């Protein structure tokens, strides 16, 4: 397996697309219900938890940038093999690919459940799954250029949803945030931990890096994306906490979507229904990127043909989603996955950076002594 990945100029992308790629990979199903999760521990100080998580994410992105700087044009599967050797490197790569596969299942399940609750209570899971997966496969077949294009265009196509939030903002009750720092540090910390599920996805930087044309700007684009996602999450959580009362918020599963209920225009009422439909365009880039990451990692680690992996993964996903039947199972799976995601995205890069530095230092020393 080659450590460096040389990509022809024709399929390279500009660094500023990294912003959209990372942002759309982060924002997906997590943000629909994030407020309830954080509120359950950090209560009115949830916004502090998000800031903490945001800063931590920024540090992690910084470490990623530093790791990538050590190599000219490598990605994480390559770096792992370089650092830990063939066997351990491949093992870690497999874990990463399986993690992305799990991420796909969790996104699929969560979105399908939302559709079943808001739009069509009777629609079978496998049907929606088939729709989404066929779109995902169709997009991934187009390669990195199409995947990045999807995340860019779908971001532009859905970002206007923020504007309609002016209505709940005008109805916010600022007393809900008082008293500030009314909870213990451990509560806030565990709130920050719970935020991470909706922030994971920025590790895509470690995989897309060889495809970036102007690599020097990639780091700042990634930091910007991290900032953007933090601000978006912050805005959503602040609005939901201000808009809903505490006990009410604890009973809701998707407060972000419920908030859209009061928005109405002269030509459309019940905006939440439109929002849930439109959410498909928020979830799709998420799934498409995850699918690419999963299949690409398998290709890198085992040298398989990505097309074949893609088809097999799609079929497995299709049957994988049927296994899960109720909310509790989905929640359990999502929680476990969030923990894995936390270690992969928030801990692993910070640990990996010193190791990479040490290894390169030793190597350089050996090179000079010889």
């Amino acid at each position, binding site marked *: 397996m080659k450590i460096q990945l040389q990509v022809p100029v024709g399929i390279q992308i500009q660094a500023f697309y990294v912003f959209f790629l990372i942002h759309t990979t982060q924002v997906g199903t997590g943000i629909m219900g994030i407020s309830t999760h954080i509120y359950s521990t950090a209560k009115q100080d949830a916004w502090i938890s998000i800031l903490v998580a945001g800063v931590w994410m920024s540090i992690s992105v910084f470490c990623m940038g530093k790791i990538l700087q050590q190599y000219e044009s490598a990605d994480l599967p390559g770096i792992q093999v370089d650092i830990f050797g063939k066997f351990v490197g491949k093992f870690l790569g497999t874990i990463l690919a399986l993690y992305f596969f799990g991420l796909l299942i969790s996104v699929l399940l969560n979105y399908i459940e939302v559709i079943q609750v808001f739009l069509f209570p009777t629609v079978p899971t496998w049907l929606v799954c088939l729709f989404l997966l066929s779109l995902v496969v169709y997009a991934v077949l187009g390669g990195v250029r*199409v995947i990045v*294009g999807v995340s860019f*265009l779908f971001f532009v196509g859905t970002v206007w949803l923020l504007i309609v939030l002016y209505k709940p903002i005008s109805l916010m009750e600022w007393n809900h945030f008082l008293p500030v720092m009314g909870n213990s540090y451990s509560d806030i910390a565990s709130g920050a931990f719970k935020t991470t599920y909706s922030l994971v996805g920025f590790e895509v930087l470690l995989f897309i890096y060889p495809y970036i044309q102007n690599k020097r700007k990639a780091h700042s684009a990634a930091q910007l994306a991290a900032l953007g996602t933090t601000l978006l999450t912050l805005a959503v959580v602040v609005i939901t906490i201000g808009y809903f009362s505490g006990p009410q918020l604890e009973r809701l599963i998707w407060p972000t979507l419920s908030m859209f209920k009061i928005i109405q225009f002269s030509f459309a009422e019940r905006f939440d229904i439109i929002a849930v*439909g439109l959410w498909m365009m928020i979830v799709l880039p998420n799934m498409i990127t995850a699918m690419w990451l999963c299949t690409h990692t398998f290709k890198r680690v085992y040298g398989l043909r990505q097309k074949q992996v893609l088809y097999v993964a799609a079929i497995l996903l299709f049957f994988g989603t049927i296994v899960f039947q109720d909310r509790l199972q989905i929640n359990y799976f999502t929680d476990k996955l969030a923990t894995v995601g936390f270690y992969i995205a928030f801990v692993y890069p910070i640990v990996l950076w010193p190791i990479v530095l040490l290894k390169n230092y030793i190597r350089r020393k050996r090179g000079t002594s010889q």
Partner: protein
Amino acid sequence: MRRSVQKKKKPSDLFPCTIEELKKQLSTMLQDSPDLNFSTYTLGQKRVIVFYFTYQINKEQLHRSILDTLLASQDKTWDAKMIQNEVPLASSTLHDKLVSVAKELIQGGVGIYVEEDDQPITYYIPEQARRAVSRAENESLVLGPQIAFTESMVTNLNIIRWRLDTPEFKTEKLIIGKEIPTEVRIAYLTNIANEDLINTVRQRLEDLDVNDVMDSNVVAQLIEDRSTSIFPQLLTTELPDRFCNSLINGKVGIMVDKSPTVLITPATLFSFLESTEDIYFRWNIGTFLRIMRLAAMFLSILLTPIYVAALSFHVEVIPSSLLVSLGQSRANVPFPPVFEALLLELLIELLREAGARLPTKVGQTMGIVGGIVLGQAAVKAGFTSNILIIIVALSALASFTAPSYMMGGAIRVIRFPMIVLSGLWGLLGIFLGLSFLIIHLLKVSSLGTPYLSPLYPFHFADLDNSIIRLPWSRANRRPTVNETKKPVKFSQKEAKKKRDIDE
């Protein structure tokens, strides 16, 4: 031994021969055509035969230049070289083989052969039926030049040379079609167009292995990147001003003989939504028109599906005030909304198709009968609701705003699967279809250029002249997507120079 002797008796070895022999061989080769005219003259010591297709040549030139010269003195003895020297026509060719003589005759040549001479000589004096240059019918404009291309390549080249009188304008001649050859020209400005693009176009055309091409639209379908797509990937136009404007901006044109439209490549989705009229209008009106057309495209694809989805599944989305009038107008309709919408869309499509096929005089009546009478009757009979008629008419109108007939057709066809999707799965179906469309558009390319450019890959400077239009003083760049040799048209500095009061 015998076979090799027979093989040697090929038409190439016909000459020198007698006049009778030539006549016989030529007639057999040209399927004994009754229009093949032979006239024999005895001049000096030798007989001379002049032969041609009566309808393929210019009779006046034949009489004035060829026959007058030949018959001027009765006792001169001619041979091919002498004829070439004395006949006042430029396009003479000497032939060794009878096949090439026959080919020349078909294309509009006159053959002359002096008995027992080595080579027959032909003059190319064709007369082609061609229509006069007329107004553009299909891409009609209010402002700007009204002239349109015709079927004749010579006339078209003449018009383009008139507009682009610069030595940098270059055309490359290619012959396509193994059985029926057709002349195809690649046209571009050598100092502007990108070399790689020209090479791609040339490569694609040279690689074509077809028997014949009927029209430029067929050539477009033969060389495009993704033949499974519903979207046209090369721009066809009948307007010389549009063609020349594209060339000046670094695009490459393909002209096909016998076709009244030319091709422009690379084409993006937005180039199908722009009309040259946007350029002739003031920039602010041009911008408005372009954005309106873009909105019309979305409207045309989404409006009827939204109606169907809202009425079939998401009644709660409809505001209560609107719900009353919708309910009243739909009270008599026995069909589900999908069926109702498909019926009416089909009606409109039939009207359009009938209008396009009928002679113009009847076509107008059809429009009125279909549009007003049928629509009114359909509502009265309880077939459809009033509101749906408005929606369907609106989306049909919107689809006609696309300046490219080809793109209009694509938009209209996309509507049907979208209606079916919305009828089956409501909003979910609509967003499914829309997502698929966007992903599909991302995958399409026109001779290697991304179809959605300048939206993706995003080029801020290219938004001018694709989605919006800037004032001329600011529009100093050629589209970067064309990768031209001269990306800047004029210096921005000078155009922007600010003058003080009363200076």
